[in-house]
């Protein structure tokens, strides 16, 4: 079926890149000037001149015969890279600076200085795992780059990670490349989502991950460089770049290290998060998820708070957050230890808190009248379609069908388990609510294994 795609001029490179990634480099695209389209898109009278200006080109694109290349594009070749690069300088520092300049110019770095990934350092990194250098961990979207252990090790060296961190990085990459993780969306969306990386189990303490005051901040090499190794691996193996095919409009709040922290299992009143998923306490895991800008709650050192008050605040914010999008919504609630203890003292366990949040955030049917993010369905129509096409699981569908009637209260997530509860932060502390609308499978927890330099993570 012949077709034509309208885009805005800001997405020129993105459209070219996406077309090529999907094997259709010849698709015909027409650009609308972004500086006129976005300010005017609410009013048809402002869009009319834009449509008139491009009308003849549109007709031409739909009727002009194809070139031979458009009809039968040349097969693409496996994109291979030079295995290594050589630079020379007057001394090591000058050579290292040349590596930095070259890597950034090639879009292989993140803008901060990198450690030159020499064969010796990469070999040392790989000594942190029993896994073979050529083992394929997965493919990284949007370009489906092959993530081998060795390639991830190169990026880990660049990030400044220690070899003993490497099994954590590999496990996280297994999560990101799991087909259920929403990686294309996270890597490319204008929504500017930031990956969330949570380390659980004994390896967190052994490697010195921060789970207390400043857990999302600087100063802890494990948090910073594991996060940065993942940043660089996704950038280089998925081959993304801002304004080209990473269209996060604001960039990401934690652009260089993601939200990388450990759960404070020692001060948590509940079983560790990974144990709640079925892992053993002695297991170590990494959970990868995704979030828009997190909501900060509680009083910190300034204002009084109670655990119940924080939960009520969360309920109120979720219920008034806007569109109800239950088929794919997920939340990660990070409670600081004092808050978790206060809630535990009032009888909550993790499961009952999940169920409380699920029940209390239900939205009255009569409130569901607004349009969904995309398309023209109302929330009610959209949820019904989500049931019909299986995006809401069959075992949860009866609950939604029962709720979608006058007097009903509609859940904002598919099940209580879509509220993931983790304990971390300072004392005093704030609580964080990470929210992601993309898919409710985005949270992927993987066991850390194959470690050689730590006691934990050897399984």
């Amino acid at each position, binding site marked *: 079926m012949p077709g034509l795609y*309208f885009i805005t001029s800001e997405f020129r490179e993105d459209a070219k890149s996406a077309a090529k990634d999907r094997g259709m480099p010849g698709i015909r695209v027409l650009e609308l000037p972004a500086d006129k389209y976005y300010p005017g898109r609410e009013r048809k009278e402002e869009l009319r001149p834009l449509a008139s200006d491009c009308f003849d080109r549109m007709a031409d694109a739909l009727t002009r015969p194809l070139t031979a290349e458009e009809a039968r594009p040349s097969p693409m070749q496996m994109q291979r890279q030079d295995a290594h690069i050589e630079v020379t*300088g007057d001394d090591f520092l000058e050579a290292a600076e040349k590596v930095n300049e070259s890597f950034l110019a090639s879009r292989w770095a993140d803008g901060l200085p990198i450690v030159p990934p020499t064969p010796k350092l990469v070999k040392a990194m790989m000594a942190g795992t029993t896994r073979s250098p050529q083992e394929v961990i997965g493919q990284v979207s949007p370009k489906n780059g092959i993530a081998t252990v060795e390639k991830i090790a190169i990026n880990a060296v660049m990030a400044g990670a220690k070899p003993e961190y490497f099994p954590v990085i590999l496990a996280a990459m297994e999560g990101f490349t799991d087909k259920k993780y929403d990686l294309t969306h996270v890597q490319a969306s204008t929504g500017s989502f930031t990956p969330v990386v949570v380390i659980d189990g004994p390896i967190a303490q052994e490697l010195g991950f921060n789970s207390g005051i400043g857990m999302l901040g600087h100063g802890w090499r494990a948090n910073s460089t594991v996060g940065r190794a993942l940043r660089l691996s996704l950038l280089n193996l998925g081959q993304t770049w801002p304004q080209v095919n990473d269209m996060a409009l604001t960039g990401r709040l934690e652009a260089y290290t993601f939200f990388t922290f450990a759960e404070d299992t020692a001060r948590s009143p509940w079983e560790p998060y990974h144990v709640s998923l079925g892992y053993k306490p002695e297991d170590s895991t990494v959970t990868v998820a995704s979030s828009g800008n997190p909501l900060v709650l509680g009083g910190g050192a300034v204002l009084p708070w109670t655990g119940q008050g924080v939960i009520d605040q969360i309920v109120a914010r979720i219920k008034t957050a806007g569109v109800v999008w239950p088929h794919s919504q997920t939340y990660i609630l990070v409670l600081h230890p004092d808050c978790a203890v206060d809630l535990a003292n009032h009888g909550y366990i993790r499961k009952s808190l999940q169920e409380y949040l699920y029940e209390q955030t239900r939205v009255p049917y009569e409130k569901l009248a607004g349009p969904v993010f995309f398309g023209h369905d109302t929330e009610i129509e959209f949820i019904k379609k989500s049931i019909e096409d299986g995006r809401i699981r069959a075992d949860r569908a009866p609950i939604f069908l029962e709720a979608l009637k006058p007097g009903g209260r509609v859940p904002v997530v598919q099940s209580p388990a879509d509220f993931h509860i983790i304990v971390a932060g300072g004392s005093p502390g704030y609580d964080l609510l990470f929210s992601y609308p993309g898919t409710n499978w985005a949270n992927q927890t993987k066991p850390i294994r194959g470690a050689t330099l730590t006691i934990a993570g050897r399984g």
Partner: protein
Amino acid sequence: MTQTSAQQAQAHLVVLNPRGEIPPPVTLGISPRVASLDGKKIVLVDNGKFGASNFLDVLAELLKGSYPNASIVMYPKPAAQTITNVPKWYPTVKQQGDLFIFGVGD
């Protein structure tokens, strides 16, 4: 890590490439064009982003003015159907007409 020549007093650094191999996708040509838009059934696919329906409405008016024998089908893309599950909804576009115009992409 460095190989320094005493004579030249230079540092020579060998570093590994951080990018991985990219398996090539199967390449596909685009569909042959139509000879004219006149008399054709044109499907305007609204991707649901804010403003797209306004733009496509205007385009529909212009198409009707220039090609009175063409018919226009407005097709709102199903909500939350992304590029990753195109196969699920694209065939329904194909059933609607002779050619499509998709907008407005970002």
